[in-house]
Structures are given as structure tokens and as C-alpha cells.
């Protein structure tokens, strides 16, 4: 009952946000520049939340998320541009292939731990990027021309589905399994949790949604190039999750929104942006290593308020 209340509450909130923004777009209050920032924000939220399930929930340190985004972007672009499929099919196809890639990468690498896993995922992401760089069918280094098809509706629906699925997964039996791995892998193993299975599941789900984000990204700009998906992109996504709080879904989403605005504001000063990013990252890690929100969700702040109210 309680959970379904949160679920419907979120859905209503999402509808209201959607209606307001769509109204503003139809009414001509938001020009293309702002629409683009909103879509960019949605893509970044999807990426942040899909990495959150790997790092925040399961505690597996992956720094190759841009690789799965690249798979989603390229597969969906091939589907629409070369095969002439409709966008929605292309997005799903991109996501499914990306999830398969996640499964293939995850099964061997998730046996590794900590630093080694991080480097291995980084290596896989680079390999994926180099493969796209070398395949002439998708344009090689010059990139692939893609028609602009993404609208605010696609991006927003993508975000809502991503958040709903990952929030529900976290609250399910599987999600608790994943959290137990994050807290103590050996203890979880001893309690009879199939740690490899849950790690691979979380990783696959993460790459599925990264694939959706990549597909929407590919159709938002007019060209996709392999260099877009290098490890700096992976670090960008990592920064959202770490800054927002390792283990907090709303935290990573808020960080994604905030940092998208910051980088849009500093678009003409990319160096300054990266310097600010890195300094903030270092300071947060030195003084608050769990990230700004820790493992708390934004909803728990309201719950705390309610509790205080009932006492009075």
C-alpha cells in the first residue's frame, strides 16, 4: 500500500512535469536551446540512474558506462538510418543489444573486484569504442549522420520508465540482494545469495538503460562519433553518481540535473567546467566520501518531516 502510494505519487508528479513543459513548448515559451538542454538533462538522468544501479546499489565500480551508451547509440542509428525502422523500435533494439553487450562484458569481468573491475570495464568500453571507430559501415572516425528525431516526449518517457524500473528493482527481493552485495560481498555469499547472478543482473539492467539513453542521444544530434563515447564521457556519468550520493537514486538524478545546467552555463568555457568538476569531485571525496546525499533518498526528507508533525 505504502509503496504503491509512492509509485502513483511519482507517476502523477511526472505527468504534471510533463504537461507543464509540453505546454510551455507548445506555447512557444521554450525555444530550441532550452528544449535541447531539457532533453540533454533527461539523457543525463537516464545515464546517471542506470550507472547508479551498478555502483550505488550493487557496489560494483564500473567506469566504462559510455561504452554501453555507444552501443545503444550506434545500434539505434543503424536501425533508423540503414534499416528504416521507426524510432521506438530502434530505441528498444539499441537497448536490448546494449543489455546483451552488458551481459557479455559482465559475466567475465564481474568476477573481479574493486580497482581491477574498474580498469576492466574501462578497457571494455575503450574496445567497444575502437570497434566502432574501425567499422566503415557506421562511418568510422568521421561518424555517422543521424536525423534529429528525439522529442521532449521520448526523452521524458525514457526517464520515467528508467526511474520506475530501477526504483522498483531496488525495492524488490533482487534489489535487496544487490544491496547486500554492496554492504559485504563475503557475508552476502555466506548467506546464500548468488552474488555473481545479482551482479550480472544489475550490470545488464544498467547497460539496458544506458542503451536507451544512448539511442535517444544519437537521435538528438545530427551526428554521432566514436570520440563522443570515450572515457571522459564515462567519467562524466560517474561524477553524477558520486556527487549525488553513492546509493541514492534521487541524489544521482539531482546531480545530473544540476551538472547539466552548470555545463550548459559554462558551455563556452569547457576547461573551466572540467576544473570546477574535478575540484568539486576531490573536495567531496575528501570531506564527504559518500557523496552529497549519501544513501538517503529525497523522499526520506519528507518522511522525516511527517514524523515530526505527527508527534506534535
Amino acid at each position, binding site marked *: 500500500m505504502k509503496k504503491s502510494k509512492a509509485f502513483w505519487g511519482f507517476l502523477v508528479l511526472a505527468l504534471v512535469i510533463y504537461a507543464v513543459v509540453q505546454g510551455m513548448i507548445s506555447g512557444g515559451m521554450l525555444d530550441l536551446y532550452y528544449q535541447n538542454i531539457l532533453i540533454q538533462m533527461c539523457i543525463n538522468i537516464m545515464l546517471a540512474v542506470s550507472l547508479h544501479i551498478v555502483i550505488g546499489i550493487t557496489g560494483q565500480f564500473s567506469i566504462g558506462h559510455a561504452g554501453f551508451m555507444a552501443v545503444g547509440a550506434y545500434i539505434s542509428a543503424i536501425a533508423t538510418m540503414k534499416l528504416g525502422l521507426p524510432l521506438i523500435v530502434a530505441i528498444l533494439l539499441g537497448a536490448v543489444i546494449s543489455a546483451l553487450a552488458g551481459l557479455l562484458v559482465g559475466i567475465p569481468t564481474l568476477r573481479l573486484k574493486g580497482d581491477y573491475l574498474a580498469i576492466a570495464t574501462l*578497457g571494455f568500453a575503450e574496445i567497444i569504442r575502437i570497434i566502432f571507430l*574501425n567499422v566503415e559501415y557506421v562511418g568510422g572516425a568521421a561518424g555517422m549522420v543521424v536525423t534529429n528525431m528525439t522529442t521532449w516526449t521520448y526523452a521524458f518517457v525514457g526517464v520515467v520508465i528508467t526511474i520506475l524500473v530501477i526504483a522498483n528493482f531496488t525495492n524488490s527481493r533482487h534489489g535487496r540482494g544487490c544491496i547486500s552485495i554492496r554492504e559485504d560481498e563475503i557475508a552476502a555469499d555466506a548467506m546464500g545469495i548468488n552474488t555473481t547472478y545479482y551482479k550480472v543482473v544489475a550490470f545488464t539492467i544498467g547497460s539496458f538503460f544506458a542503451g536507451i539513453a544512448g539511442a535517444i542521444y544519437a537521435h538528438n544530434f545530427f551526428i554521432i562519433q566514436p570520440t563522443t563515447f570515450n572515457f571522459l564521457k564515462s567519467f562524466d556519468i560517474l561524477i553524477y553518481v558520486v556527487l549525488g550520493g553513492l546509493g541514492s537514486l534521487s541524489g544521482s538524478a539531482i546531480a545530473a540535473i544540476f551538472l547539466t545546467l552548470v555545463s550548459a552555463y559554462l558551455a563556452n568555457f569547457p576547461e*573551466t567546467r*572540467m576544473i570546477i568538476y574535478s575540484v568539486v*569531485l576531490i573536495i567531496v*571525496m575528501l570531506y564527504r*566520501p559518500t557523496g552529497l546525499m549519501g544513501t538517503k533518498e529525497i523522499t526520506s526528507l519528507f518522511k522525516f518531516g511527517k514524523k515530526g508533525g505527527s508527534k506534535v
Partner: protein
Amino acid sequence: MEWLQQLVNGISLGSIYALIALGYTMVYGIIKLINFAHGDVFMLGAFIGFYAIARWDIGFIPALIISMLLCAIIGVIIERVAYKRLRNATRIAALITAIGVSLLIEYTVIFFRGASPEAYPEVMANKSISIFGASISSQSIMILAVTIVLMILLQFIVHKTKIGKAMRAVSHDADAARLMGINVDNTISATFAIGSALAGAAGVIFGIYYTRIDPLMGVLPGLKAFVAAVLGGIGSIPGAMVGGLVLGVVETIVSAIGYSLWRDAAAFVILILILILKPSGIFGKNAREKV
């Protein structure tokens, strides 16, 4: 004799990887941290060497020494400012800080001098000597000579001096070393200083050999040097040397058989194979996890 030629090129490239990998492996051996900023210290070393040679007009050997000294200082500053507080933090926090420091160095350099590449001045006449039909440039010989000298020096420091003994003790068991009266903090700083000095030397050599440097040049060699360190067995000094040379030769062979665009992928494929098949590397010891 084509192959001998490629082998020489591979060894030259491999020596650069080996010099960078030594810093990774020493730091990892002592505080279990992948120092992502190490590749950027390498980049700073290349730029210090460039300014020393091109602007102040000094010779190759003095420039190399200046670059090594300044890089050693930079390495110690990085360690004292960013990593020292994180000794007891989680591995993820330390790793993210290292990534942060790496980005900070790269973009601070870009902020002050722009992202444009720089052409390294020629410091020595590029003569080639032909041995068995393969022409070996004097630069390759210089790289090899500098690398060998530095590695002998490193072996001497690690095995014959007091600080080297302290470093080995701390990497074996930091707490026990502290109980034995070893100043662990200073030993860790010394490790960073030596590792960064080697990276600085690698930077100057890289600049002279490839003649083109830019602020983001440290990223890929840094990652590959890490691969070399893992390949040789992370924490092992001879492992880093062998790993670097093997990686350099493999990369050159991949380029030579016509897959030069796949060269970067080769390093990562090696990394993943070694992580899956033998994570302890060629020279690494198998560590059992204790609960």
C-alpha cells in the same frame, strides 16, 4: 630484417611504458591505489622538458634531470594534498579522487596554455646505425640507455639503500613497519617522488622520440602503462619492466601487420585476458583474501 626493426621500435616504446608502469606498480604496492594522475605527471614531465630545452636552451641530460626533480616534487605534493587523507577511506573514494586529480592537472594545463600540441625540439642529430640490415636510430639507443640506467638506479635504491628497505617493509605490512620505527608517511612520499621522477623522465623521452606533445597525451600511455603493470604483476618492480616491454612489442607488432587502428585495443584485450586468466600477473604473488 623488417622484424628486427619492428622489435627495436617495440622495445623503445616498451621502455617508455615500463618507466611509467614502475610508478604505478610502486604506488600500488605501497598504498593499494591506482594513481590515475600518474599519466598526467608523465605529461607534465614532457612539458617541463620541452620548456627547459626550447625556452631555456639547455641540453638533453640537464633537461631530463630538471624534469625528474620537478615531477618528483609534484608527485609528493599530489600525495600530501589529495591522497594522504584517504589512507583509511574506501577504495572507491581513493580511486575517484585519483580520477579527479588527473582531470584537474589536465585541464589546468589546458587552461593556462591551451590544448594545442607542441613540437619537441630536436636535441640530438638523428643518425641511424645499421645492424644486421635494420636501421636503428640514435634516439632508440638513447631511450634504451636512459631506461637501463634509470632501472639499475632504481634497483640500487630499492635493494641497497635504507629508504628502499623501508619501502619494501611498508609495502609488505605498513602497520608492522610503523611498529618497527619506520616513518610510513615519509616512505610513501619517497615512493611517490621516485615513481613521479621516472614518469617525468619517460615524458621527456617520449617527447624526443615522438616529437609531439599535448596536454591530454598522458591519458592513453598512462592507461597502457597500468596495463603493463598489471601484466607484469602489480606491485612487482621487475614485473613492470617486463610488462612494459611486452606491451610495447605487442603493440608494434599489431601496427606492423597492418592493424594500426586496432593498436590501442590490443592493450585492453591483453588487460582483460590477463585479468581473467591470471589476475596476479606474470610475476605477482597469489594473495589469498582473508575474511
